[in-house]
């Protein structure tokens, strides 16, 4: 009896084993992925078709890039904690905004972004943090060169802001009008912009004397303060203070504290994952990729990857030509 049981188990094992190997159907030694009557679709044909298309070549670049990042910048505890914090903050925001419907709303938003659940989003966040480390290393290793380009392309400046809130910007209350007038008058005195911001600004930056830090072409001031503030912020000259700018929920004054290259360079010397040097140029990833000493054992693969990088850098050049 024992023997029979043992034989049955061995047989089950053999069947399972043969089940595995049988799943690979072949025609003339080549794997068949699928078939219809009288026609097999071979793995080799699908590979050749896909690998020779533009999207196939881009996929090879993406895959190699992905491997480079994963192997050279593995997930750290900091990344995990960072991702946890972001997820927690999102969940808290949804909870306070939607209450009982928070989970449903969050899932719907995640689905719109292509995520099945918050865990999938968290995984993606961690990948983004790994990518940031990858770019960060390139920026650190090539700081002077990257900074020079950033300074030319992104028009960075140190900016401060004062906000005078208004319920209805076209019909100020007496109190709002008085405050606005007072700020205007003070800006014509010797009192510093920062001191006025500290005492009068209704923006959260008042605690830092109105200082918004470095603002450049990648900084989104528009969604918080409106289009006109966003535009004015990048056109002020060093030392210049704007007149009152009408926003959607108040009036704003901006001061461009500095556009000095060395001052800004010093500010950005410590490169962290939030540094604008990592995000001002969407093509920087191609430069970072090129800085790795990869060995190509297949000429077609080498050409495919080179083509993707060359095309991207050509597009970057054209974009810059068009923007200049």
């Amino acid at each position: 009896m024992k023997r029979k049981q043992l034989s049955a188990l061995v047989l089950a094992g053999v069947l399972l084993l043969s089940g595995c190997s049988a799943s690979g159907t072949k025609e003339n030694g080549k794997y068949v992925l699928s078939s219809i009557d009288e026609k097999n679709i071979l793995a080799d044909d699908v590979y050749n078709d896909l690998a020779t298309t533009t999207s196939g070549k881009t996929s090879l670049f993406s895959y190699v890039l992905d491997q480079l990042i994963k192997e050279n910048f593995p997930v750290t505890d900091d990344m995990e904690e960072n991702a946890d914090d972001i997820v927690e903050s999102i969940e808290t925001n949804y909870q306070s905004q939607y209450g009982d419907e928070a989970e449903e709303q969050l899932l719907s938003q995640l689905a719109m972004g292509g995520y099945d659940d918050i865990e999938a989003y968290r995984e993606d966040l961690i990948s983004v943090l790994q990518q940031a480390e990858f770019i960060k290393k390139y920026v650190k290793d090539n700081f002077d060169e990257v900074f020079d380009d950033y300074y030319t392309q992104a028009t960075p400046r140190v900016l401060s802001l004062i906000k005078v809130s208004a319920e209805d910007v076209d019909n100020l209350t007496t109190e709002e009008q008085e405050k606005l007038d007072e700020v205007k008058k003070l800006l014509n005195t010797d009192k510093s912009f920062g001191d006025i911001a500290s005492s009068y600004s209704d923006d959260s930056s008042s605690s830092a004397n109105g200082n918004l830090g470095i603002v450049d072409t990648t900084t989104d001031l528009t969604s918080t303060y409106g289009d006109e503030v966003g535009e004015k912020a990048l056109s002020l000259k060093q030392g210049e203070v704007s007149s009152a700018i009408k926003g959607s929920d108040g009036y704003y004054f901006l001061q461009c504290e500095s556009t000095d290259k060395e001052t800004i360079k010093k500010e950005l010397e410590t490169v962290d994952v939030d540094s604008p040097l990592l995000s001002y140029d969407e093509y920087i990833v191609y430069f970072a990729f090129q800085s790795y000493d990869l060995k190509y054992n297949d000429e077609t693969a080498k050409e495919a990857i080179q083509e993707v990088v060359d095309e991207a850098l050509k597009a970057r050049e054209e974009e810059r030509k068009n923007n200049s």
Partner: protein
Amino acid sequence: MKKIGLLLLCSGLLVACSSSDYTSKVSDSGTTLVSGENISVTKQDYFEYLLDYYGANKIISDTLVAIADKEVTDETQINTLLEQRKKDYAEYYDGDLTKYAQSLGFKTEDEYIENALLPDVKQELLRKKYIEDNFDELLTTYQISRFKKITVDKESTALSLIKEATSEDKFDELMDEYGTDAEDADIVTKNSTLDENLTKKLEEFSKVTKDGVYSEAIKLSDDNYAVVYLYDTAHEDKDEYIDAISADDDAKTDIEKYYLKKYNFNVYDEKLKEAIKDISEDYIE
């Protein structure tokens, strides 16, 4: 003890079989394409990455094209539709098909035609062949009708309009009078985007065999009322109906399912099979 060991071995094998790996290999799968800097990318790695992103759709498309090659053999028909589609898509970029192709990520016009447009044209003709062969049945299945409508806010107004609309010409005059509250919905299927209360009426509309105003004022979900004029109930513009059915997502899937079954479509790689089932559960039996 031995028994437990064997059971563990069996369950281990089971896990190996149902793992997320592809069982199919590309020739020279172990060849290293790129290495150095702590990475080693083989041909199989790249193949699987391609399968992850494009495999399921590629297999379905290649299979349907292979079926189309058997079912649709009129080269003139293929070339005529191909030329038409080239013109249609080029119009998005002032007649420049290359620019359109590039906007989709193809490098050249030829690459786009070979990899996307021609396969699409063949699949479209395959669907149309099926629709032509099963036209009357599909009109019922997808609740096809063709109508114009005027939306008003009072039921009494809607009922007056129904009395007034004694002919198509008269309904057209009323449509002019109601301006933006009137529209020609043209050919619709049960999957068209319509007010839900209109969708509920489609089955009834599709059975009407005589042109004319629908006898009831249809209360819409926003409490307005629709007055509907059904026209071309004889389906004289057959090609237009075929186009409409061909563009219906459900009809598209149902037709594809029919042909895949007819030609005994089979997928041998479990992971790929699951990915295809994710597109439509019914593609594989």
